[in-house]
């Protein structure tokens, strides 16, 4: 155990003393989150929206005023017919349409319940989603203000509709996506490189010719990256909650447990690559081409899997990040629990077991 600790300590020295690794480790997730995050919020600023007000009553007026006052929106035109909506959307200038039904205020007063429709252009999924969120927030605000003086609360129900991409694939997916990417990068590539580096510099030779069990060398090298990856997960979540205001709806404990599982999957993969290669360059290439690229392509993060040709959909099933992506998205955005995610979890566990076993099987206690 003393040996193991000494090893882990040494590993941290390596990481902390290598400025470039540090930058990749911690700079990259932060940069990615911020780039994605701000690219989005810039988009949303001063978005032109169309208001279709069939009600023309006090309630609808108030809400429209609030929307107009918000720095995110510019109410440009008040069209009256459904036909106008479609044609303005097609012009491409309008990002969203807010529709109040004719008896909006009436419904509120008599039924304590009214509907308002939010239609967005979902070709740009992320923006559409942001806008929906902001508009809903404004409406909810109004509702809360009105309810302060009422014994029976009013309920305004925004009905959101996405035009052109109604299922909203990939929306808000970038935080889970970045998480999968970063963990892949840190756990697969960094681990593989750091083990192969020992082979390259010849220190592996000395370690092999020592009483230290070779397999422990591998575990001792992987362990620090587990810690570093968990720090990264925390950093990403922190940024997404506080900088991007994207809360974690589900259980944080479950999210960390699933992340740890995925990190172990990645570490096993990193170990496997390091066993099979002898140079840092090749380890890096394999990690990049073999792991990062599929993660980007097949996890559903950038390209919806449903739109892919069938053979590629099949291929996507063997990419661990696809399952992790589904899990994180479900926990963070949908707030689902383990009951809904057991299938994906079991698949990830299976993959991890498989990778660990082939890594251990192919591990060599000599140089060849």
């Amino acid at each position, binding site marked *: 155990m*003393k*040996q193991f600790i*000494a*090893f882990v300590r*040494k590993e941290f*020295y*390596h990481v902390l*003393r*290598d400025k470039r690794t540090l930058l990749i480790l911690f700079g990259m997730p932060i940069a990615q989150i911020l780039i994605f995050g701000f690219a989005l919020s810039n988009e949303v600023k001063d978005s032109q929206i169309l208001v279709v007000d069939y009600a023309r009553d006090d309630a609808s007026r108030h809400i429209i005023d609030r929307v107009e006052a918000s720095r995110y929106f510019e109410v440009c035109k008040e069209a009256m017919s459904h036909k106008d909506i479609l044609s303005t959307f097609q012009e491409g200038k309008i990002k969203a349409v807010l529709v109040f039904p004719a008896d909006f205020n009436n419904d509120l007063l008599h039924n304590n319940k009214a509907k308002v429709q939010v239609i967005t252009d979902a070709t740009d999924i992320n923006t559409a989603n942001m806008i929906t969120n902001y508009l809903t927030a404004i409406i909810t605000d109004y509702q809360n203000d009105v309810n302060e003086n009422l014994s029976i609360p009013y309920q305004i129900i925004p009905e959101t509709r996405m035009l052109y991409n109604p299922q909203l694939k990939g929306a808000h997916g970038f935080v889970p996506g970045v998480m999968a990417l970063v963990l892949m990068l840190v756990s697969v590539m960094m681990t593989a490189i750091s083990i192969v580096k020992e082979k390259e*510099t*010849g*220190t592996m*030779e*000395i*370690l*092999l*010719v*020592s*009483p*230290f069990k070779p397999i422990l060398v591998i575990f001792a090298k992987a362990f620090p990256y587990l810690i570093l990856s968990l720090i990264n997960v925390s950093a990403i979540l922190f940024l997404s909650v506080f900088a991007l205001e994207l809360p974690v709806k589900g259980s944080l404990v479950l999210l960390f447990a699933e992340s740890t599982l995925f990190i172990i999957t990645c570490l096993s993969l990193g170990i496997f690559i390091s066993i099979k290669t002898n140079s840092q360059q090749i380890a890096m290439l394999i990690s990049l081409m073999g792991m990062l690229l599929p993660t980007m392509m097949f996890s559903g993060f950038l390209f919806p899997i449903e739109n892919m040709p069938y053979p590629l959909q099949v291929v996507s099933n063997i990419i661990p990040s696809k399952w992790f992506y589904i899990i994180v998205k479900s926990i963070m955005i949908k707030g689902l629990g383990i009951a809904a995610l057991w299938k994906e979890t079991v698949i990830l566990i299976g993959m991890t077991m498989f990778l660990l076993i082939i890594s251990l099987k192919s591990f060599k*206690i*000599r*140089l*060849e």
Partner: protein
Amino acid sequence: MEAIRVNHITKTYNEGKVKAVDDVSFSVGKGELFGLIGPDGAGKTSIFRMLTTLLLPDKGTATVDGFDVVKDFRQIRNSVGYMPGKFSLYQDLTIEENLNFFATVFDTTVEQNYHLIKDIYVQIEPFKKRRAGKLSGGMKQKLALCCALIHKPTTLFLDEPTTGVDPVSRKEFWEMLRRLKEQGITIMVSTPYMDEASLCDRIALIQGGKILSVDTPDNIVNTYPDRLYAIKANEMYLLLKTLESYPDTSNSYAFGEYAHATFKNNDVSELDNYLSSKGLSGIEIKDIEATIEDSFIRLLH
């Protein structure tokens, strides 16, 4: 009991296409300083790696401290010290951190065996907070030796410890090896420098994966069969060319400021005149004792 015993080992690479070690046998006694002398690519590193259990021989057997290098690799790994050819410590760790790390890996502490490395460590101790990557060649080598010694090995394997190191550091290094030998540690060392051969108790000359000769340096030199002459002239290049064309020359080559040569019938009576007639001046011819390098050159021919 012998410390190292090698029986007809052969090692090939690329599915047998490259023969790195070809039917090599030798043994090293306990407490001996044994040198494996030969150029790059002679097979020295392969032999070291087989003895340190890092590679498996294709054929043959070998033992270290009586343990078989294949079956008993764990015992061997516990008891030997190994310094690979390349500087193999962590460049981004300090001297102190490297030493402590290797001590822990070998399940010991620096204090426990400090007496073994004291002589060497005091020379680099003033720089103990410096990272290994920032050390000079000589200092790196001393640190590597400390790390290889820290667990009190019975046998020390040093693969080309002095390659690329300047003559002063090389000399100091060999003095350290001498002192370690006095403490009873068996040392097997390889080097491409012929002049270091005379510092070993016994040496094996190796080339192309084959051992040319195993003996004490003195015996190797004494059994040199021909009379060897050292010849000097003011015009070195012309001298070398002229010696080559001299009909009685059996072998000639440059050797420092002299040319060394052996002749058929060991007759040099006519040589002086011949050289003068070819325009050489300042001619000096003397009968000399062969060196290890002369023996090696003869064996290669």
